[in-house]
């Protein structure tokens, strides 16, 4: 994997809301609890001493329940909310020092925001909404309309230029919100619960759309969500917030497999694992026979060794060919046949390692034989056994093994 470049660095960032910020900060550094601080100073700690980095071109999900401080965190990146203390560096530039024009330029050119309830201007057409960012920058009408038109097309809203926001469905309105954000061509997209107001079907579709879009655009996307399934689906890395604290920053898989504390553990308990786990996560390395080298006797012995009733067959290059059954091989030996091709069952379900388990569940539960997991060149990477799938879904540790049914 290519070397990750740091896009944003957050350094000891804190935000305290309330009338006695200084006092609250003293108490906080003295190690008082947030409840104590609220009681003593009537001030709320929004974000407490956050320290993390966000890489270039990644989808970084900030995850937490309402009141965890995630929206506050997001709004400090473009300084809609001024941090109480700490520093944010964007491309190594300290954005806390920006003021006036520098700050406007940061918002106009570096970052765009997508809002939970779309925040489209109801009195403007879709095209004018999408062109808003460029209009604010003073870009000529023709140029900005051209750009806005292109980004609307990119989000799949061709032909709606002259409509008004209230004529569009929620999903379509949020596409406009997305188009408005990318028309400026910023490096960074700030997405505040961008899909939370959509129904589940639309939400799923927009998540896919965002992933597709990210494939083309390569932005750094900071995505706020309270929905762990969403976070796990779209996030390259996830930051877990709880009560103003950064609890854990990790990849979705590491978050699931190595939750840092009980809070995260409790959080991931309810996750639909079939959507996160892929075929690759649950497959095991099988024992195989090479059809060009091994005969029936060899095959039978391997099956006996592992106490299995069937075995996967590959060629010299480990290309997957099929499965043979112990009973068939027995029969062969009795008939004095030598060529394993005669009993080869090629009708084996196949999949790739990236496929999410949710897409395979139905077939796995019906199939009498294990699934073969192949790479792009049809090499056998592993096999999927029903028992392993059930273990993985029930939250047991998933690790490679070589046992066979």
């Amino acid at each position, binding site marked *: 994997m290519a070397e990750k470049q740091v896009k944003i660095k957050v350094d000891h960032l804190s935000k305290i809301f309330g009338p006695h910020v200084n006092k609250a900060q003293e108490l906080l550094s003295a190690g008082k609890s947030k409840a104590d601080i609220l009681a003593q100073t009537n001030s709320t700690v929004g974000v407490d001493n956050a320290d993390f980095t966000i890489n270039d071109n990644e989808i970084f999900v900030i995850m937490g329940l309402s009141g965890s401080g995630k929206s506050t965190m997001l709004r400090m990146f473009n300084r809609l909310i001024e941090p109480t203390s700490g520093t944010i560096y964007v491309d190594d530039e300290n954005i806390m020092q920006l003021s006036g024009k520098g700050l406007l330029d940061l918002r106009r050119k570096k970052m765009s*925001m997508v809002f939970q309830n779309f925040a489209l201007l109801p009195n*403007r057409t879709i095209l004018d909404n999408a062109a808003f960012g460029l209009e604010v920058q003073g870009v000529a009408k023709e140029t900005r309309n051209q750009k806005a038109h292109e980004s609307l097309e990119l989000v799949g809203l061709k032909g709606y230029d002259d409509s*008004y926001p209230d004529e569009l469905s929620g999903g379509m309105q949020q596409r406009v919100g997305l188009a408005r954000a990318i028309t400026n061509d910023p490096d960074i997209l700030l997405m505040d619960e961008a899909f939370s107001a959509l129904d589940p079907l639309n939400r799923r579709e927009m998540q896919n759309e965002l992933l597709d879009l990210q494939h083309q655009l390569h932005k750094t996307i900071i995505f706020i969500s309270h929905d762990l399934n969403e976070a796990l689906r779209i996030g390259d890395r996830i930051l877990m917030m709880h009560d103003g604290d950064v609890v854990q920053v990790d990849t979705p898989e590491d978050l699931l497999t190595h939750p840092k504390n009980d809070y995260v553990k409790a959080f991931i308990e309810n996750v639909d694992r079939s959507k996160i786990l892929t075929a690759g996560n649950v497959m095991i390395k099988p024992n195989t026979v090479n059809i060009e080298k091994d005969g029936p006797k060899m095959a039978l012995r391997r099956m006996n060794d592992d106490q299995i009733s069937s075995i996967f067959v590959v060629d010299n290059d480990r290309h997957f060919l099929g499965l043979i059954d112990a009973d068939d091989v027995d029969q062969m030996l009795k008939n004095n046949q030598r060529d394993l091709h005669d009993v080869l069952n090629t009708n084996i379900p196949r999949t790739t390692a990236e496929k999410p388990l949710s897409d395979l569940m139905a077939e796995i539960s019906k199939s009498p034989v294990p699934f073969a997991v192949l790479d792009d060149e049809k090499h056998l990477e592993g096999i999927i056994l029903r028992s392993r799938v059930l273990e993985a879904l029930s939250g047991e540790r998933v690790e490679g093994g070589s046992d066979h049914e």
Partner: protein
Amino acid sequence: MNNALVILSGIPAIPLAKWINSFVNWLTGFAGFFNALTAGIGAILDSIQWILDLFPAWLFIIIILALTWYILRNSKHWGFMIFELLGLALIWNQGFWHDMTQTLTLVLATSLIIIVIGVPLGIWMAKSNTVNMIVKPILSFMQTMPAFVYLIPAVALFGIGMVPGVVASVIFSLPPIVSTTCLGIQQVPADLQEAAVAFGCNNWQKLYKVELPIARTTIISGINQGMMLALSMVVIASMIGTMGLGSLVYFAVGRNDAGAGFAAGIAIVILAIILDRLSEGLGSSKRHQNK
């Protein structure tokens, strides 16, 4: 308890009226300022009157009908246009035409001035808590004080005629436009304001690209209210020499002539209905007008 009452009854009457009189007297010391103001308002009145008098009555009626058709072109308005035609024709027929244009001049000049003062003041109030706290009680005072009272200092400072009538009308009809503008700006949804800032609007851009367009309908309803209040002042203003339909009513009162009074009163009603509908029509969504 009793002692307190004794003490209270022992206090001599506070010379409130005297104080206010000396304040007004003090104000008359700035004659130069008030003369300039009088001349300014007079110029506005004269130019509006001049424009209105430019057209003969029949052409004026056609222009009003065309304007109505343009402003209300997205709603059913044929009935209203027939009403306009008949109503204006009646005013003409009764020989009230010139009085009507004078009254219209008063209302339009007042509306112009309250928009120019009221909208920025309302915006300022919405943006600043301090301004809000200072202006709000003053507005309540202005609106609840009986309108007659304004006539007295208005005469002292601006003399007799149209100008003090306009000044009294402005004071009386300014409050709604200020408070609706303030309300309209404050009601702009938080996420739209946030979006404006997030996309790099400076304060002016935020105001005229986002807040004013969103608050537009509310602000125009304030202008509509202000206009109606100005119209309600025409009879009162006629007591200090403001000419027009109001003075016809006022004179009819003096002569105890119910017929003449009602005839002029009906003309005011017709004018009020037309102004109300047209200014309301301006407030309907711009978007439908653009289509």
